[in-house]
């Protein structure tokens, strides 16, 4: 809101100043306003160009607003008043199948939560299950996975939060469900749902179906605590979950998430239980981040930067052209005694009306384009998400705020008017003769006081930028000092946050410093060289500086601070600076060498006699108008940069994800994860059932068994630098031995999965040798990638290959010595993989030999792997799902589905990006068309003269066509090459621990997009070219100036 007000206030003040001065400056006002009417075609072009720029700004903001609206909708639908949740974790593993608080403990907690910051608490006994719809014969017909049943205290639920959800009373086995769940299970009021849970099966009757209302969503069933406890055989009023509402209604911005979590933790610090620890989690904001919205927002911000930057370049180009065109008459006006200020005013008054119209229409048009884009993206998401079962979550909602419209309007206005002011000021400073005769401005070559003063300022700038760059080396020392001072904000940070911050600052200082030094260095050297040598050496210095900048950018990835900064969310600004810098550098190098490039490219065309003169004209104009060509190239290349970047990222991530997932299931087609509390007997029963199916070739178990490593105590471990959720680490106290898991895998899985190792013990030449040894010898283990992860996975002891590790059961009654002979290679970004082998890896056979059945039954979670006879098909998967419907299965996933799900998520991200790129493309192509149309206007007399000299119509057309092709192609080449460099830099950073990753350059896809871009540009460019060709010689030469 503040930004909107400030920008609108600036608009208002500038407008007021312009209008007041216009009132008191009749001559500039008359000239300025009459120029608008004088050439209506020109006016329309300038307005359209600025309008596209403003539309892009408002469109970007509207897309951002829509994401905000999507957040709010999700919050209202799925979270409502629920802001935090308290769950239980056992201090020690007990024999209770389901941990819960006794009634008095719950009451004690509720009393502790009676604080100002909290305005609602409800208690629940929550269990997870895969419910089934039961038909009249009592048979399950449809099921779904991972639903939470909340056995609640209805009285506290009805009073929950500021705006409690109105609920009907339920009794006995009645449940309340949401429409999405009813749709999934084809349920109506009165139908029966069965929830398998461990050895139990609990039946419910649907009492009422609600729209999702922030309490009952697609993943939750509400029943009474009385009924659920009675079915589970535990005392009435037992709870394991306490849901809390923070004061301030539903909107997430009404409370500070981390602060609220701290408040709750403090309120509960006196809770003392021998059995349980309370785990407090601020839920709303965490959940929103979990939905991946943060990534979306960051993507949009980066894309908006690119889009807005392209829009600004278009506006700058148009006004520079307009000012150039007016140069001659501005010279005449100066000659007849108009002051420089009056001259600038004429242009500002003219520009004021253009920008007022274009910003108003453009910002409204942007809202319309934003609406179409959000609508199309929503449909694409719906399709994509229906594959993954998340269709209810990803509903993109269109939304826009008046503030955004104000910002877009004011920003469009300000950028345009500032460009108009700067362009006219520059021309008003030209000498009258230079302006009238349209002579190029001569460089300041005379060494005198003015020259020395100016050169000194340049030198000072260069020196300062050098100092700024070199400060890179001392930043850490300064910041370390600050960190040692009590009360300094740096001292409050965790080590990892502090290191990230230092890296971020270092990377920005170094990179921006280098850019500044190069730019100022070129200006300084040029100035001195021109004065001493009396020669223009711009081409040489700019080319050397530009190419050096590209080389420096590419080599920045060898710096640790740069890599670290690049991986952080805040590093997206660095990505933007880097991308723009790469594009501008190459565009500068190309623009300053256009004569050489055009000589080489034009060679084959010049062999054709009649094309010689055409080619000369086509290449000479862009080569002579360096500034205009440069800006057009940058504008165009930025969009192609993004296209190349996005396409490469998409193709490479696609390839790597497929590769990773193919390894994940080691030749099996399905993974079946039984629900929590599934007994060993039930698991064996599932295996038996599966093996009876004709489609199934083999079934294996994959286990995760709790073990401890007595050599390592938690208190001795270093500060954890969590990569993920600390709750992944089994609950423990500081005195406990380090707890981990045995990941026990089937032997054939190990052989086929070919999990890559980052380290091998001495004597093992290949990864295969290591895995063969693990299968053969129970005393050899491989540590999973949780141990190899660069940033840790909870607290991890430092264990190296060759170390002897004692593995024991939870009660430390066994001491089995193992030798670590390998460590699994970490996945993308150095984080532990989502694969099934993150802990201590051995075989099922060895684990079954070492631990008794009771231990495994209680402390081991099992997943099942199944391989089909023949091809992997959706039909076979569905038949297995149907066969296992009566079991409490958490998830059945097919490797193909998993791959498609993972890829579809990436694809949906890419669709979002591509949708935005399409929007940017409008700017690029229409910008080119507008620039060509302006060029036709500008060269009208020259076209007439060329026609008199014997240029045929087709030659004029061909000349413009070759010129547009030349610019478009150069833009495409610059964009493609810098986009590829940008993508390679990203891969180098993102996959730094995976040298096997081979970047993919999807030639076909990129070629098709470039062809489309080229055709679109030509379609836009052809109309003005035809118009130029149609001019008769006399019509063109008679054109009034």
């Amino acid at each position, binding site marked *: 809101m503040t930004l909107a007000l400030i920008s609108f206030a600036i608009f208002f003040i500038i407008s007021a100043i312009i209008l007041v001065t216009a009132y008191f400056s009749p001559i500039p006002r008359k000239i300025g306003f009459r120029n608008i009417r004088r050439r209506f075609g020109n006016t329309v072009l300038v307005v359209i160009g600025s309008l596209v720029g403003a539309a892009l700004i408002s469109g970007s903001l509207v897309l951002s607003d829509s994401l905000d609206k999507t957040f709010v909708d999700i919050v209202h639908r799925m979270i409502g008043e629920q802001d935090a949740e308290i769950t239980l974790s056992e201090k020690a593993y007990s024999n209770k199948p389901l941990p819960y608080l006794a009634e008095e403990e719950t009451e004690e907690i509720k009393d502790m939560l009676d604080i100002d910051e909290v305005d609602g608490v409800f208690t629940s006994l929550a269990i997870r299950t895969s419910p089934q719809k039961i038909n009249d014969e009592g048979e399950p017909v449809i099921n779904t996975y991972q639903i939470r049943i909340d056995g609640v205290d209805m009285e506290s639920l009805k009073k929950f939060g500021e705006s409690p959800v109105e609920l009907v009373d339920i009794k006995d086995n009645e449940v309340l469900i949401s429409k999405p769940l009813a749709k999934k299970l084809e349920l109506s009021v009165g139908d029966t749902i069965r929830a398998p849970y461990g050895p139990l099966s609990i039946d419910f009757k649907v009492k009422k179906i609600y729209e999702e209302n922030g309490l009952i969503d697609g993943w939750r069933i509400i029943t009474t605590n009385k009924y659920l406890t009675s079915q589970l055989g535990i005392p009435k009023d037992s709870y394991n979950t306490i849901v809390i509402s923070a004061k301030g209604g539903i909107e997430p911005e009404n409370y500070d998430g981390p602060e609220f979590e701290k408040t709750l933790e403090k309120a509960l610090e006196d809770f003392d239980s021998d059995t349980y620890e309370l785990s407090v989690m601020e839920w709303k904001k965490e959940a929103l981040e979990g939905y991946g919205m943060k990534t979306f927002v960051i993507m949009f911000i980066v894309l908006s930067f690119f889009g807005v930057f392209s829009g600004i370049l278009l506006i700058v180009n148009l006004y520079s052209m307009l000012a150039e065109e007016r140069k001659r008459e501005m010279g005449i006006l100066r000659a007849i005694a108009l002051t420089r200020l009056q001259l600038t005013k004429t242009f500002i008054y003219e520009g004021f009306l253009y920008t007022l119209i274009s910003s108003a229409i453009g910002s409204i048009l942007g809202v319309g384009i934003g609406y179409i884009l959000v609508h199309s993206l929503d449909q694409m998401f719906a399709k994509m998400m229906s594959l993954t079962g998340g269709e209810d979550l990803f509903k993109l909602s269109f939304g826009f705020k008046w503030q955004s419209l104000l910002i877009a309007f004011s920003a469009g206005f300000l950028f345009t008017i500032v460009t108009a002011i700067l362009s006219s000021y520059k021309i008003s400073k030209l000498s009258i003769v230079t302006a009238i*005769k*349209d*002579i*190029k401005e001569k460089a300041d070559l005379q060494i005198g006081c003015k020259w020395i003063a100016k050169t000194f300022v340049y030198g000072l700038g260069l020196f300062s930028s050098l100092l700024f760059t070199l400060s890179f080396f001392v930043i850490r020392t300064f910041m370390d000092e600050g960190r040692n001072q009590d009360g300094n904000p740096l001292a409050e940070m965790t080590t990892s946050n502090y290191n990230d911050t230092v890296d971020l600052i270092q990377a920005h200082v170094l990179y921006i410093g280098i850019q500044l030094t190069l730019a100022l260095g070129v200006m300084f050297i040029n100035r001195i060289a021109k004065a001493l040598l009396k020669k223009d050496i711009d081409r040489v210095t700019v080319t050397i500086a530009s190419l050096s900048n590209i080389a420096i950018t590419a080599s920045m990835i060898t710096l640790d601070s740069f890599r670290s900064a690049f991986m952080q969310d805040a590093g997206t600004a660095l990505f933007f600076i880097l991308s723009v810098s790469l594009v501008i550098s190459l565009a500068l190098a190309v623009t300053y060498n256009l004569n050489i490039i055009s000589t080489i490219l034009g060679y084959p065309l*010049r062999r054709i*006699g*009649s094309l*010689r*003169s055409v080619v*000369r*004209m086509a290449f*000479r*104009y862009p*080569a*002579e*108008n360096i500034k205009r060509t440069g800006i057009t190239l940058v504008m165009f290349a930025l969009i192609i940069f993004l296209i190349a970047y996005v396409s490469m990222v998409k193709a490479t991530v696609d390839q790597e994800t497929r590769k990773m997932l193919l390894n994940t299931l080691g030749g099996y087609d399905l993974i079946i994860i039984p629900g929590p509390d599934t007994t060993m007997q039930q698991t064996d029963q599932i295996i038996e059932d599966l093996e009876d199916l004709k489609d199934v070739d083999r079934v294996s178990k994959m286990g995760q068994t709790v073990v401890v490593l007595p050599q390592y105590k938690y208190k001795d471990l270093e500060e954890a630098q969590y990569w993920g959720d600390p709750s992944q680490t089994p609950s423990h106290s500081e005195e406990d031995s380090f707890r981990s898991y045995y990941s026990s895998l089937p032997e054939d899985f190990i052989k086929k999965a070919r999990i890559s190792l980052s380290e091998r013990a001495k004597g093992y030449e290949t990864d295969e040798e290591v895995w063969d040894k693990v299968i053969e010898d129970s005393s050899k283990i491989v540590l999973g990638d949780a141990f190899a992860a660069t940033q840790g996975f909870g607290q991890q002891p430092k264990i190296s290959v060759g170390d002897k590790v004692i593995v024991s059961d939870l009660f430390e009654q066994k001491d089995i010595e193992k030798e670590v002979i390998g460590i699994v290679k970490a996945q993308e970004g150095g984080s532990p993989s989502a694969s099934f082998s993150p802990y201590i890896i051995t075989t099922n056979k060895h684990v079954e030999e070492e631990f008794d059945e009771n231990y495994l039954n209680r402390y081991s979670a099992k997943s099942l792997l199944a391989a089909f006879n023949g091809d992997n098909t959706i039909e076979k998967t569905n038949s297995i799902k149907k066969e296992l419907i009566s079991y409490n299965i958490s998830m059945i996933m097919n490797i193909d589905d998993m791959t498609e799900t993972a890829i579809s998520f990436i694809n949906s991200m890419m669709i979002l990006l591509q949708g935005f790129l399409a929007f940017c493309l409008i700017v690029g192509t229409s910008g080119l068309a507008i620039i060509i149309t302006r060029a036709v206007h500008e060269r009208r*007399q*020259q076209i*007439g*003269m*060329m*026609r*008199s*000299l*014997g*240029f*045929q*119509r087709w*030659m004029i057309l061909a000349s413009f066509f070759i010129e547009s092709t030349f610019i478009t192609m150069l833009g495409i080449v610059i964009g493609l090459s810098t986009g590829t460099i940008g993508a390679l830099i990203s891969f180098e950073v993102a996959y730094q621990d995976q040298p096997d990753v081979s970047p993919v350059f999807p030639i076909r896809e990129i070629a098709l997009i470039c062809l489309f871009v080229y055709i679109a540009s030509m379609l836009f460019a052809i109309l003005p070219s035809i118009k130029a060709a149609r001019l*008769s*010689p*006399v019509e063109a*030469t008679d054109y009034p100036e």
Partner: protein
Amino acid sequence: MSKKEKIVDAKNLKKIYNQGHPNEVQALKGIDLTVDKGETMTIMGPSGSGKTTLLNCISGIDEATSGEIFVAGKDLQKMKDGEKTRYRAKNMGFIFQTFNLIPVLTAVENVEMPLLVTGVKAKEARERSLEMLKIVGLEDRAEHKPSELSGGQVQRVTIARSLVHRPAIVWADEPTGNLDSKTAHSVFDLMLELNDKYNETFVVVTHDEEIAKKTQRIVNIDSGKLV
């Protein structure tokens, strides 16, 4: 005395602007005009008399409403645009008052243009253009852009360009209109010198009586009629 060869033969030439509209203007009212090969002729008349329109029509860069125009024996009125353009490229040279040169090309590149348009090889075009610039006394300005030349130099380059391909006729519309008197005479003298040297035909539109007197024939036009 042998009969001179006619290079231009225009009969009953009429040009009407905005025909059928209330603001209809009869710019040429049935003009008959002939120009002999090697002749230097001036068309004179007050502003708005139709002299530039006459030049534009007989040179083929504008369409006459009716009448016949033969240039070097070819009927321009019957030619299609492409044919007329080709004919112009080969047989005519033009000098205008302003906007004569392409600003992004150097002097020599501007002079080369008519040769390149007609498919002359680059090397030959460059040699002939430099030669022509030498003739007009600007060989040392060959690599200069138009903005780096004086008004007189620009017109000299234009003359070089109009003659480089040895056209049958050169049309000049106020070629000295933008120049001071001394430069104007020097430029015009150069044109006459080249007429003498190469037997080129020059048809010139001018206001300047002093200049006009230097040509072999003066034709006066007023209100669209020869007087």
